[in-house]
């Protein structure tokens, strides 16, 4: 019999585990109620006994001639490298140079790690890697690793990183670059909220950083959005912008100090457009981060990044001087007015009654007719400007004297 593994005797566990607690092992058996008899104890011939032993193993004995025979070798023990004897305790290192009091769990013979205490304030977890600043060239990146003393130290030489670059078009066109997501890394987290700057970061996911350049001597509003690359797949993304940067943000302070962030709120592409357009100063730059919302898709997959200057409507807005020609602008519909009483089936004839109790969002837009002829103008809206945007404009009728209304967007014209 292996006495050292006999959990029913006080010697069990002695010396077998660094901080083993033999009395707890005893207690565990006693708590079980009917404790199996010891070897040599009186018993009823033919009876058999099973008792726990060692690392959650068992051993058996038979009653022979009215006494308990020798117990068998302990079998069925947990063999994992981090096994422990039930009830044993230990103190272990954790977190940023902290310690925890761990207890060995009876029944599983595995450690239950206690609360990590006395961590080094501002310290790091040994082995953690990050990218940081502090190089001779301010835009260079310094790889670092957390040492056993729970402070970061250099983990290689400073390096510069060339970003994929797009010059923002100045002719109204949309520049499209096809790039690939990089694997989630130590600095590929993204802002955790849409209102920048943010307080926190999400976990690392596959990502891409692009550098946008305003090559003009005037500030511009820029719309940027990812989309499906030729032959590529659709990804659920988050787009973040860092105006004024020439290199990608790497520290927590840099990553949280975003200029704009958008999450489509669904499972599609995200877009910084419309009211989310980013302002890039004259001859300035911005770094745009395209991150997969969750790291469930493989790195290396392609996507397209679209960049254009936002078009802002002049006021008044001249209508096209040619019949059949169109002009399109984005408008922020943030003015509230009472709606007109709707006819669910037909367009309304003017004038129409006002439902003063119901408000809706819209905007007054003044059109000018630059021609020397009387003009008629149709007004419509697409239900979707970008792949991720789904607005639902429908019939609405506000205010007093209307000269025209039609669906799907209602328009009303006031006399000049």
């Amino acid at each position, binding site marked *: 019999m292996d006495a050292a593994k006999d959990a029913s005797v006080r010697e069990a566990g002695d010396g077998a585990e660094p901080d083993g607690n033999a009395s707890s092992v005893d207690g565990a058996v006693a708590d079980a109620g009917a404790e199996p008899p010891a070897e040599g104890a009186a018993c009823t011939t033919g009876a058999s006994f099973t008792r726990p032993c060692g690392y959650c193993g068992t051993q058996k004995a038979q009653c022979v001639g009215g006494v308990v025979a020798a117990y068998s070798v302990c079998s069925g023990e947990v063999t994992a490298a981090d096994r422990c004897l039930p009830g044993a305790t230990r103190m272990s290192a954790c977190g940023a140079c902290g310690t925890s009091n761990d207890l060995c769990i009876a029944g599983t013979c595995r450690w239950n790690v206690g609360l990590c205490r006395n961590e080094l304030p501002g310290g790091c977890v040994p082995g953690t890697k990050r990218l940081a600043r502090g190089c001779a060239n301010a835009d260079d990146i310094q790889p670092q690793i957390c040492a056993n003393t729970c402070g970061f130290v250099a983990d290689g030489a400073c390096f510069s990183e060339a970003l994929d670059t797009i010059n923002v078009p100045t002719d109204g066109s949309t520049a499209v670059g096809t790039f690939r997501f990089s694997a989630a890394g130590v600095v590929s987290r993204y802002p955790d909220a849409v209102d920048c700057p943010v307080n926190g970061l999400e976990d690392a996911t596959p990502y891409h950083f692009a550098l946008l350049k305003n090559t003009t001597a005037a500030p511009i509003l820029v719309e940027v959005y990812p989309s499906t690359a030729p032959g590529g797949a659709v990804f659920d993304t988050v787009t973040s912008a860092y105006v004024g940067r020439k290199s990608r943000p790497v520290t927590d302070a840099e990553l949280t100090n975003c200029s704009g962030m958008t999450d489509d709120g669904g499972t599609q592409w995200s877009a910084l457009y419309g009211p989310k357009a980013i302002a890039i100063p004259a001859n300035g730059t911005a770094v745009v981060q395209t991150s997969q919302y969750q790291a469930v898709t493989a790195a290396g997959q392609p996507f397209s990044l679209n960049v254009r200057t936002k078009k802002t409507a002049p006021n008044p807005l001249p209508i096209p001087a040619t019949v059949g020609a*169109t002009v399109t602008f984005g408008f922020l519909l943030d003015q509230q007015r009472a709606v007109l009483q709707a006819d669910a089936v037909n367009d309304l004839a003017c004038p129409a009654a006002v439902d003063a109790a119901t408000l809706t969002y819209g905007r007054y837009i003044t059109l000018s007719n630059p021609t020397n002829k009387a003009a008629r103008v149709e007004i419509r809206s697409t239900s979707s400007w970008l792949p991720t945007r789904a607005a639902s404009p429908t019939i609405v009728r506000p205010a007093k004297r209307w000269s025209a209304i039609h669906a799907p967007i209602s328009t009303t*014209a006031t006399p000049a």
Partner: protein
Amino acid sequence: MDGNAVSIPAGGTATVYVAFSADFEPPAELPITFRTSSLQ
């Protein structure tokens, strides 16, 4: 569709109001297209 068009006199202006339905609350920018359907 032209029956619902807005009339604007030569050299003049017209103010239109474009809006969402009442149950669409979040303000959002929307692309709006203007098409000249006739000049007389």
